[in-house]
């Protein structure tokens, strides 16, 4: 298995971080890159939507939304075996939502292997961002005690929905989607020099930073050890099958199924942590971030994506 060059940047960051190099990227750069990547993905999704009759995509979109809502519901009781209600709800929401960067790396992986995929998969990414967060909020509110801390902090339903619907990543993804849809290919074309051509190179800088961040999260592993590791590896492997199942149900091509499996298996570390911090403040962010960012993210990049590809090929 040959590693994609963009992943090498992640490994560089990881190595630098673990070796305690004084390399660090300014936080303004991280913010800028994530705004860029979210907008670019949103626009790409909008262009995909613009290209085909909405009625063709609608059934698939519905299924994707359903998948986003189902994942945390399936995950929650499983996680409850070993975790408190709040931690289970928070982690379920993280894994129900998705990681834009993991998706982008999977796209790079498919392109390198010349495997085609449906253009609407980018739209699926946008659609998957939110439903799991809503479900996560609901789960955390199910029983009085768990809702207590959020209420104590003054985070009622209104505030939580606001956070979920108007968080930075949702706004940029949906906003980009609308811009791509309204402007169409001709309108966006003058912007391609940045939003298209620079997408992959910008991703390398982002991955460099992610490597540094993940290295910083390894301390958590030492603390919570086996549990975080088990969640971080086991959950994506299990979820990839749900993604494959939905992908087959939708009649996607092999490439499309791999992407959906990867979306299902990836965990959010932009939208979910902020939303869950508001909804279930008692949940330990070290657990959810440790699993989602410290384990699942590198696992998917380095091992998961080719594995989901193998899984998928069992059906074609």
């Amino acid at each position, binding site marked *: 298995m040959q590693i994609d060059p963009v992943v090498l940047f992640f490994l560089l960051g990881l190595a630098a971080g673990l070796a305690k190099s004084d390399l*660090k*990227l300014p*936080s303004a750069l*991280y*913010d800028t890159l*994530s705004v860029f990547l979210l907008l670019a993905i949103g626009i790409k999704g909008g262009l995909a939507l613009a290209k085909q009759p909405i009625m063709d995509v609608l059934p698939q979109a519905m299924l994707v939304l359903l998948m986003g809502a189902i994942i945390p519901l399936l995950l929650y009781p499983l996680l409850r075996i070993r975790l408190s209600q709040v931690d289970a709800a928070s982690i379920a929401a993280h894994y129900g939502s998705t990681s834009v960067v993991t998706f982008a790396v999977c796209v790079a992986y498919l392109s390198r292997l010349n495997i085609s995929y449906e253009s609407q998969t980018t739209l699926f990414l946008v659609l998957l961002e939110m439903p799991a967060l809503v479900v996560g909020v609901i789960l955390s509110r199910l029983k009085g005690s768990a809702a207590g*801390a959020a209420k*104590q*902090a*003054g*985070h009622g339903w209104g505030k939580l929905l606001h956070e979920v619907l108007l968080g*930075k990543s949702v706004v940029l993804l949906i906003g980009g989607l609308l811009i791509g849809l309204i402007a169409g290919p001709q309108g966006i074309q003058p912007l391609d020099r940045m939003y298209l051509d620079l997408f992959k190179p910008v991703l390398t800088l982002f991955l460099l*930073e992610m490597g*540094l*961040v993940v290295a*910083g999260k390894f301390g958590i592993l030492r603390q919570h050890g086996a549990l975080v590791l088990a969640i971080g590896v086991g959950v994506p492997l299990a979820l990839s099958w749900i993604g494959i199942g939905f992908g087959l149900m939708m009649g996607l091509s092999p490439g499309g199924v791999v992407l959906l499996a990867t979306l299902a298996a990836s965990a959010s*570390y*932009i939208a979910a*942590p*902020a939303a869950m*911090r*508001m909804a279930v*403040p*008692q949940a330990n*962010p*070290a657990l959810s*971030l440790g699993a989602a960012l410290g384990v699942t993210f590198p696992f998917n990049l380095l091992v998961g994506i080719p594995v989901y590809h193998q899984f998928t090929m069992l059906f074609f």
Partner: protein
Amino acid sequence: MAFYPKSMLTLVTEAVLENDLVELFNERKIRGWTIVAARGKGAHGEKRGNFDANENIQIELITDTASAEALAEEIMQRFGEHFALVQWLSEVRVLRGEKF
């Protein structure tokens, strides 16, 4: 010109709480405050500010001692249990005491 004694409440907490705190200040009729980006370490581990969910802010707020203490206690009660939060009070002297 005279200098008037006031109290300054300083908070270091998670950046996700900024909106909540500003709302609270407005409700409590606090007339001014200053916010600075910060990172640090405490009981909730290290906050490096290098990515979204990991940022701290430091808020300084001058008012009379009673309000500052009451505010600190309210913030403590609402956010102290589950969020990274450190607060301290110090004594300062200001010109234009009526501003605070």
